[in-house]
């Protein structure tokens, strides 16, 4: 299992979305992609759902949202 982290907290839209979509192309069956943002990316959630991915979102005390993305089994 491999993991990749995209720290998009200091990037302007739509760069976080573009980086995430590009990384999803290379995501293996057991890999996990972690996206860090200061907001919940609601548009991304529906894209993930429609394209066979699942995610889990956790919020940190500093206001960071950690979105863990995997291929849906």
């Amino acid at each position, binding site marked *: 299992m491999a993991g990749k982290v995209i720290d998009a907290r*200091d990037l302007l839209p*739509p760069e976080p979305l573009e980086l995430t979509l590009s990384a999803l192309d290379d995501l293996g069956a057991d890999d996990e992609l972690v996206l860090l943002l200061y*907001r919940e990316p609601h*548009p991304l959630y529906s894209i993930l759902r*429609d*394209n066979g991915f699942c995610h889990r979102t956790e919020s940190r005390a500093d*206001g960071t949202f950690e979105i863990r993305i995997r291929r849906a089994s």
Partner: protein
Amino acid sequence: MAAALSFEQAPPISVPLRFLLTAPLFGIVFGVFLLWQGPELVETRGGFPALAATHLVTLGFMLQAMCGALLQVSPVSTGANVWRPRLVAWVAHTGISAGALALTAGLAAERLGWLRLAVPVLVASMAFYAVVVLAALLRTSARGATIAALRLAVGALAVTVALGAAAAGAFAWSWPLPVAQLAPVHAAWAVFGWGLTLVAGVSYLVVPMFQLTPAYPAAFSFWLPRVVIGAVIAWSVAHMTEAGAGVRSMLGLVLLACGAVFASVTLRLQRRRRRKLTDATFSFFRIAMISMLAAVAAGVVLPWAEGGLRVRIELVLGILLLIGFFVSVINGMLYRIVPFVLWLHLQKRMPIAPNMNQLVPGARASAQSRLHLAALACLACAPAWPPLIYPGGALFAASCAMLEWNLAQALRVCVRLSAAARGSAP
């Protein structure tokens, strides 16, 4: 994956764009109207031409842009999918555009026939818009400060429309209603209940996102829209029941304090932004927040002013709120929302869409922000020296024309790239 990007929540491109590209045109009309009316407009504050000018900017520019932006922001950012967005956009856009023109023509020319046409058009279209959008906002499972603020704002829009219809009806059809009390209550619901609450709710979302600032404090975001609506209700009751001047002044200061706190928190967040980007949107927001603080200062000294000075300070306060705060914020948001809408459209048609931030060249947007600031400076000083309305009106019209040009250029780039993508498709 990027080519397969699909925002099921994003409405068709024509839905928000028709509003966002029409708003600056009303700004141009407003500037030309100021030139036509000249200094007399300032000297006869409260007259019909002044009411016409006010509604050109509040209906034609502000309401137009806010309704269009809400149709884009609600589904994409909160999952609130609006029922039949094309129909809602057609009804609201036609109603606002035709209604604003008929209302301002009726007020400027003092023609009851135009007013009798404008009122039902505006009421029917805005009531339909408010009901459909509020239903979408109530149905979504999204939680948080933005969705709560948007719900309260659209509810306040419905109240604003009802009060405006009552005030206009009292004039146009001689309904037995107290116009003198209804008019300021209608204005308070429009400016604070609908306007400030909507700007706050959208700012919670777009300021941290596009200006890379920390988030608005959670307790502040939760309480501000609720306090604003509570204060507008209390202020309205005090006005309608003709409560003492002291009570009304105090409640008016509470409303202004809400604006001051919002502006101060936003300026503080801007100072703490993580990347020192100073683009046109940033400048417009800064102009807006400083204008709000200046308007609050004018509101604080108002109870002590009398006679002609009081009238002039009230006018400065109104100009700072409408042109300084709302038009500036909307201008800044247009430079983010329009490129975002176009980028979404291109993303569905091209493997690699151009950078969203290059659709409107930064130098042209910054030049327009300077024109707007010059227009605001002239108009805010016009109550002290009315001939300033001439450069103010000319600069405002020029600023809105440049805004329209900048947004239209971005649309042209989008159309050209879409056509090229279609041409190269196998």
